[in-house]
């Protein structure tokens, strides 16, 4: 679907890249959030990923879907940012405590706005990055096991195990931590 626009970008039309951004920004943001768990960091991740995709677009051979290629960039960038964030957190733990307080306040506002959305997103924030990524790729972006394998670099069995554990982890979290009856959410 992006092919004509990719060609236009390769021919030097920078503005054609807008279409690609519009097309993939939300999905890329969801994936970045799965890893970095922070809105502002996720924005930086997606921004860097788009810039990298633009500069390396000539290396995209079209063997896989553009989205598969691009999401791999997003995920790599997200893990790079996460590593940087970990190093910075060690330095400024005091500042982080203040920020956590404001996140709690924002979250309680969200509960009023949309309980279901809030709970599922909170559960996805609590679980490890790879679980959250696998679930979003499989259920939200409708990728199959083979495609997830390609994006994440996992084996087939590993992908299935991760998906199984991730699903269970989310269900347990919703049940135990948030005391949510599953029926309430469906």
């Amino acid at each position, binding site marked *: 679907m992006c092919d004509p626009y990719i060609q236009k970008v390769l021919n030097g039309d920078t503005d054609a890249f807008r279409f690609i951004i519009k097309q993939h920004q939300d999905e890329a943001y969801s994936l970045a959030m799965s890893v970095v768990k922070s809105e502002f960091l996720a924005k930086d991740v997606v921004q860097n990923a788009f810039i990298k995709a633009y500069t390396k677009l000539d290396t995209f051979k079209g063997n896989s879907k553009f989205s598969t290629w691009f999401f791999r960039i997003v995920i790599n960038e997200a893990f790079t940012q996460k590593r940087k964030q970990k190093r910075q957190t060690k330095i400024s733990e005091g500042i982080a405590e203040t920020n956590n307080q404001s996140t709690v306040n924002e979250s309680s506002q969200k509960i009023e706005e949309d309980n279901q959305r809030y709970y599922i997103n909170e559960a996805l924030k609590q679980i490890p990055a790879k679980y959250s990524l696998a679930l979003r790729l499989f259920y939200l972006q409708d990728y199959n096991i083979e495609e997830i394998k390609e994006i994440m670099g996992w084996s087939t069995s590993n992908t299935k195990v991760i*998906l199984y554990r991730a699903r269970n982890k989310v269900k347990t979290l919703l049940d135990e931590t948030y005391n949510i009856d599953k029926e309430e959410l*469906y």
Partner: protein
Amino acid sequence: MMQSNKDPQFKELMSKSKLEMPFPDFEDEVILQIKKQEEHKQSLSQHLKVSWLSFFAGTILGVVLTVQLFQLRVEGLGMSSTVIELIFQLIFSLFVILSFDFLIRFSRKKSPKELFNFKSLRPPFLKSKT
């Protein structure tokens, strides 16, 4: 046990986790960054052309000076003209080699960070220790 089919109930639950980019000016910001990068790349290629021209002009001038020095037989600082010529030739050769290496790396579009990474010039036995 490990279903690879999509459990419809769980799929519905996951559909509620869909996130949207909360920054409305995101698209403009990315395009602006890309345009800035393009401008930077263009100015770099201009600098590169000037650098190659200066390199060739400098090399020709250096060769001319070396020949002139050889003909004039300059002496001073208690050194014979042969020693002065040798020192000049050594400095000139080193300068040409280093400039050429720098320009080649620059032409291969390496990032400024890589360009000024002098660790890459270290001999292999020192690299292995780090």
